[in-house]
């Protein structure tokens, strides 16, 4: 009884370290114009619903959904905010199409991270205010502690994490939309100060600005358009627990559960074999490895080897983050998931240029909401 649902258009602007020439509204409008042109639809006539993805403290505005409808063509239409990740927004659109109530739903997410004067303070504001926030003077300490335990249990050498950074920044050099591309070598990375020991600044994805719009449609609609549809074959999402003290510090359980759900829906039994390439969260270098294991691209403990052997490069056996990921493109906060979706759609349509992976028929895209959360989402896409 599941309806087939396709992504029929994507549009974006970015990603930039800063973007002073456009307001967030103007950025959203540009991304939306590109998406509607891509899909060949008129939002005022054709779109049934809209989802925007945002968090108040990222914007500096309370109940940010107020400032969304006009510039994405959603004025006087059903719109709502998902305070989550871009992929959760995409899933909300997917669900609405599944009900049969709607046929075309538009998802928008953006980042104006450069407008926050103290982004780390904002991250700290997400910590439990009575047990954790008064103790921790830097929010990155959570990632640092998690990294320590993860590499301890999996016996991952720091070289493997450096390799993740090298690979993603190199992929980003082939991606014209990346904010932090670079050609770097392992010595440079390993020599850096561990400012949040064991994290060095190389391990942390820097913030970037950008806006992304993805248009989702039912099969009937998708088949009648000129565009080549990319099918949403499975979706999953999960929150483990907000409590730092009771969560799993080694395995990304949220991603495991989300992937199980998405694979079940997509009929995927052996992801390591059936998935052609993956976009997984790499807000921190170790997260890429942890997430690869969680979504079953390899067995637990193997991710480090895969990376060291170059298997996750664009030409490798299982390319991971051909876009350049957050380390190369930039950390787009709530929009990160949609950036990955846009990349995967581009790859599946074989429009990815120099970073095109050879076999691109089935992709998995995974997102994480960042510290201090344990929320993640997974989407399986295919042609």
């Amino acid at each position, binding site marked *: 009884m599941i309806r087939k649902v396709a992504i029929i258009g994507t549009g974006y602007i970015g990603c930039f370290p800063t973007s002073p020439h456009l307001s967030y509204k103007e950025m959203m409008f540009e991304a939306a114009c590109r998406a509607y042109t891509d899909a060949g639809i008129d939002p005022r006539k054709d779109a049934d619903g809209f989802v925007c993805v945002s968090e108040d403290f990222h914007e500096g505005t309370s*109940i940010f959904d107020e400032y969304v409808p006009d510039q994405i063509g959603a004025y006087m239409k059903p719109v709502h905010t998902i305070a989550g990740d871009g992929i959760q927004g995409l899933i909300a659109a997917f669900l609405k199409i*599944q009900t049969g109530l709607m046929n075309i739903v538009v998802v928008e997410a953006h980042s104006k991270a450069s407008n926050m004067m103290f982004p780390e303070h904002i991250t700290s504001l997400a910590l439990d205010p009575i047990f954790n926030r008064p103790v921790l003077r830097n929010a990155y300490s959570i990632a640092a502690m998690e990294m320590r335990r993860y590499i301890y249990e999996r016996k991952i050498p720091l070289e493997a994490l450096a390799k993740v950074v090298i690979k993603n920044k190199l992929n980003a050099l082939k991606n014209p939309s990346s904010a932090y591309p670079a050609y770097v070598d392992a010595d440079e990375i390993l020599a850096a100060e561990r400012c949040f020991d064991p994290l060095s600044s190389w391990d942390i994805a820097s913030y970037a600005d950008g806006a992304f719009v993805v248009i989702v449609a039912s099969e009937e609609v998708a088949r009648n358009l000129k565009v080549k549809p990319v099918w949403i074959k499975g979706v999953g999402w999960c*929150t483990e627990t907000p409590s730092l003290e009771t969560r799993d510090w080694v395995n990304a359980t949220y991603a495991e559960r989300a992937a199980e759900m998405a694979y079940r829906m997509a009929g995927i039994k052996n992801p390591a074999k059936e998935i052609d390439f993956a976009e997984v969260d790499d807000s921190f270098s170790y997260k890429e490895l942890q997430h690869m294991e969680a979504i079953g691209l390899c067995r637990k403990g193997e991710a480090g080897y895969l990376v060291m052997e170059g298997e996750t490069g664009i030409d490798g056996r299982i390319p991971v983050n051909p876009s350049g990921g957050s380390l190369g493109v930039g950390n787009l906060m709530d929009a990160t998931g949609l950036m990955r979706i846009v990349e995967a759609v581009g790859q599946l349509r074989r429009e990815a240029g120099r970073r095109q992976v050879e076999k691109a028929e089935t992709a998995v895209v995974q997102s994480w909401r960042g510290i201090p959360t344990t929320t993640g989402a997974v989407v399986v896409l295919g042609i």
Partner: protein
Amino acid sequence: MRRVAIVGAGMTKFIRRAQETGKELSFEAANMALNSCELTIKDIDCIVMGTAPDAFDGVHMKGEYLADGAGAWRKPYMRSFVGGGTGVFAVIQGWYHVASGLFDTCLVVCEEKMSSCQPHPQGAFLTIFDNIIERPLGPNLLWIFALEMNRYMSVYKIPKEEIALVAVKNKRNAKDHPCALLGEDITVEDVLKSEVLAWPVQRLDVSPISDGAAAVVLASEDRARRITDKPVWIDGVGWCLDTTYWTNRDLAYPRYVEAAAIMAYKMAGITDPRREIHIAEPYDPFDYKELHHMEGLLLCDKGEAPKLTAKGVTSRDGELPVCPSGGLLGVGNPIAAAGLMKVCEIFWQLREEAGARQVTRKVRTGVAQAWGDLMQVGTVVVLRR
């Protein structure tokens, strides 16, 4: 389309300053909702959270923070908001989770802890205005209500006395609500004599700032029938967001509420809402809003709602009981939780479980509605026994 029912409901008391954390309030409401239909968290497939600005509770990404209190441990969990419309929208979000066919049950939780915000929750409200061209004027939330109320009164020539009747009715209704913060007997005189905050808005026109949570359990048709013999069906849902540029609109009439209502009525097969809707819980953070929303919900002509109130049509023993719960004016206004409280009330009324608040006439179809943002969003659900 897959039919979805509400099978259980729960809420906390609405209070000015709660000792409980937001997580604990969420747990209390969610636990009561589960107990009310004798389910445990193992029976729940997914969780939906509705909670409005993070600046109330004082936690960034507060949806994430509240997750364990809402029972989301290792489950699919998603938070949405549409400002003040969130409480009713959360039910719509839960509806599409179950109606999609992906899940059979969904726990919907709404929470707001406004007392955390200092020196006054108005600090959070200040930041709902445009960051560059409105906030520098030092606006407060009362302004938008006062501006809208004045426009409504002027266009339809409604005297303040008629509007005050809503506050009198709702605060009286709230006396029978075990969770109410401000259930009391007041008179129109009291309202008119109360402190002027932002004319035409006076102290007793306004709902109180509160802490609280509410929750409902949703189930697919098969499951619902196994859980209870009194499921309440979500037969229509609608929502609509008007332009951000609120100073470009005529505030006299909430056309976005009308659009949301039409969407919900169409889905529910309602062609004559005045005849087919038996009971309503429109959003009443201020007394005139109840009237405004009755008109937007097409329950009466534009500018006519005050007359219905004056005639007693909207009282508990009237033909169209409106806000029998006591509404936000009487029960309290922890924003998202208050919206969901309205859905809970219709649920209890349709099941004839509202106790002292049970309306006189037999009711089979009810509507709950919330409103929010910059006088911009309408969220509507139609419920049926």
